[in-house]
């Protein structure tokens, strides 16, 4: 089967002193190739744990993940990841960062240069390719991170709040860029975000997770990502369905946060 299937995934962390945290419980999800899934949820609902398991950085305590017919057992170039920030290699130039993946698998130089040049054009950093990454602004650095991930041509792109540290304007531009890249490359993307608006705009599918234990609370199929590919995201936000959806999800997460706070107060 082509795509990613997550079957009955559970993750339990044993704490010193005999306690434990059930970070994920029986999470099942099927993702077709080329789907864009955004994941929302209050803090502590296991979104990042889920992403780390898909990336192969963590082994689940139960359940399995199948990508394109084979089991995921560890990190691999078929699953690229874009981090919030700080994951670029500051000892390399922009070009070298983007070329990292191809260099690791010893791609011939001509082909590598072509790939890198093309991606730098796509993210609009052609003029900055010989700069050191720490000379770039936060938004540019995230564009480098995107290009670096794409240079490896992964089947799945995992994004862990990639736009979380950017200012509102840059963020909006980057959201358009993500949609454009998604449409052009046809990659499967899992995007974790704290912003309900971002999740709605970018998520072709959207899951809201609930904490204690971490599980999928509700799932949506949304039209906004497809609309946003060809039009201004600010226009998409004026869609009659957008406002009510946002309110609904905000309330849902708000209630969960309240519950967590309440539980904490009871415990205290």
């Amino acid at each position, binding site marked *: 089967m082509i795509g990613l299937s997550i079957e009955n995934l559970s993750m339990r962390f044993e704490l010193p002193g005999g306690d434990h945290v059930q970070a994920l419980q029986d999470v099942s999800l099927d993702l077709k190739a080329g789907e864009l899934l955004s994941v929302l949820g209050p803090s502590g609902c296991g979104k990042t744990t889920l992403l780390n398991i898909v990336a192969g*950085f963590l082994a689940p305590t139960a359940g399995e993940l199948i990508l394109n017919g084979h089991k995921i057992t560890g990190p691999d*170039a078929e699953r690229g990841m874009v981090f919030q920030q700080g994951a670029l290699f500051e*000892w390399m130039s922009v070009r070298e960062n983007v070329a990292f993946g191809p260099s690791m698998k010893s791609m011939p130089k001509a082909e590598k240069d072509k790939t890198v040049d093309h991606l730098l054009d796509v993210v609009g950093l052609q003029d900055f390719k010989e700069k050191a990454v720490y000379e770039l602004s936060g938004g540019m650095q995230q564009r480098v991170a995107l290009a670096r991930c794409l240079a490896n041509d992964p089947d799945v792109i995992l994004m862990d709040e990639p736009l979380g540290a950017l200012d509102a304007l840059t963020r909006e531009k980057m959201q358009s860029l993500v949609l454009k890249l998604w449409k052009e490359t046809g990659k499967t993307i899992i995007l974790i975000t704290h912003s309900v608006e971002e999740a709605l705009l970018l998520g072709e599918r959207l899951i809201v997770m609930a904490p204690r234990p971490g599980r999928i609370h509700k799932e949506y199929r949304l039209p906004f990502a497809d609309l946003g590919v060809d039009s201004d995201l600010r226009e998409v936000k004026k869609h009659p369905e957008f406002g009510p959806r946002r309110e609904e999800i905000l309330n849902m997460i708000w209630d969960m946060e309240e519950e967590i706070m309440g539980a904490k107060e009871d415990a205290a």
Partner: protein
Amino acid sequence: MIPLLMYVAIFVAAFFIVTKVVQGAGLKDYTSLKTVTFGDESAVRPNRAAGIISILTIFLMWGIFTGSSLLPGFLHAPGPYEGTTTFTYTAQGDQGSDDATVTVVVHPREQDTDAPEVDPGEGFAKNDSAAIAQWRSGLITVDRNDELGRDDGVQVVAINGESIAPGQSVAVEGGTVTLSDRGTPNFQPNRGWQMEPLYLPAPEEVWTRTLSIAGEGFRNFTLVEHLGYSLFRVVVGFMLGALVGIPLGYAMGLSNWFRGWFDPIVEFMRPVPPLALIPLVIIWAGIGEAGKIILLFLAALWIMAIAARSGVSGVNISKVHAAYSLGASKWQIMRYVIVPNSLPEIFTGARVAMGVCWGTVVAAELVAAEQGAGMMIMTASKFQNTDIVIMGIILIGVIGFGIDMLMRWAERLLVPWKGKG
């Protein structure tokens, strides 16, 4: 006390002159336009003028209090008395009293001078003469040539007409006369405010000594060889320390077993000052090159191991994860992520280690060595060659400073991403 007051006075005067008068028309950059500078660390930058005046002041004070020929004479602090002075003493016995004159020639120490011939004069007390070196004092046995001396019950009762008793002093021209317990005048020429060359030679003397040692050498080795030996030991010891310490630090940063095994050793050895190891190293390896290099190796080893360890453990896990999901193997992660990421820390460690090694090598050479900067100043001090000692200290300081500058320069060149992660 007087030099300290003078130094403070120069400090205050320079401050007011430079800040109030000269810099009134300074440039108006961003920092100079800040209204809040007190407590704003970024607004505090070393004042260039202050730095230059500070260095000049040190040389100026040095020149003033050593009577340096580099300074015009009126700037010198009052020097020690030099020349011929006279005072009279009054000898009194049962037979009455008589006055006689003592002529004292005060001469520079390095120039031998005989007591001048003087006319004995009238009376039972005869005129005397003496030659006394600057900064020294001398007993003048005035009754040596007198017709009636101490054995006849004659005593010195006055100097220049002022009465005096054993233990008391009278100021005379060019010095002080103190009567010893047995009644002999002791002449102490005025010392002035200058330092005796034995304690602090003038700057130009240190300079000429530096040139002569650079030309003729010191104790069978030229100056360059002495300094070269010290530097050679530092470089070899440091290199060996880095060669072992960096891989050790990497192993400790990457493996539980290595971390567990070596942590107690490294954490124990780190606070042991390398100087404390000198006796043991001398017992084990003798005072030759091997002992020094072992000592410096040990001085650099722990610093480099800890720097490499923290360089490895300081890597942002996102970078490692990113490299894994870009398809890098363990070896590639080591080569392209962990090593470059640890370089800034290693450079910081190297700078510290070079400084410690330089200090340690000088100390080790003080204890025992045939050549080297430390040996040079230790030997010179035994022969009271203060100029060589001061020259050595200055050269050791300059080289230490140079090493640090070189390391900083290399750091900027080789790890420009330091602190940018």
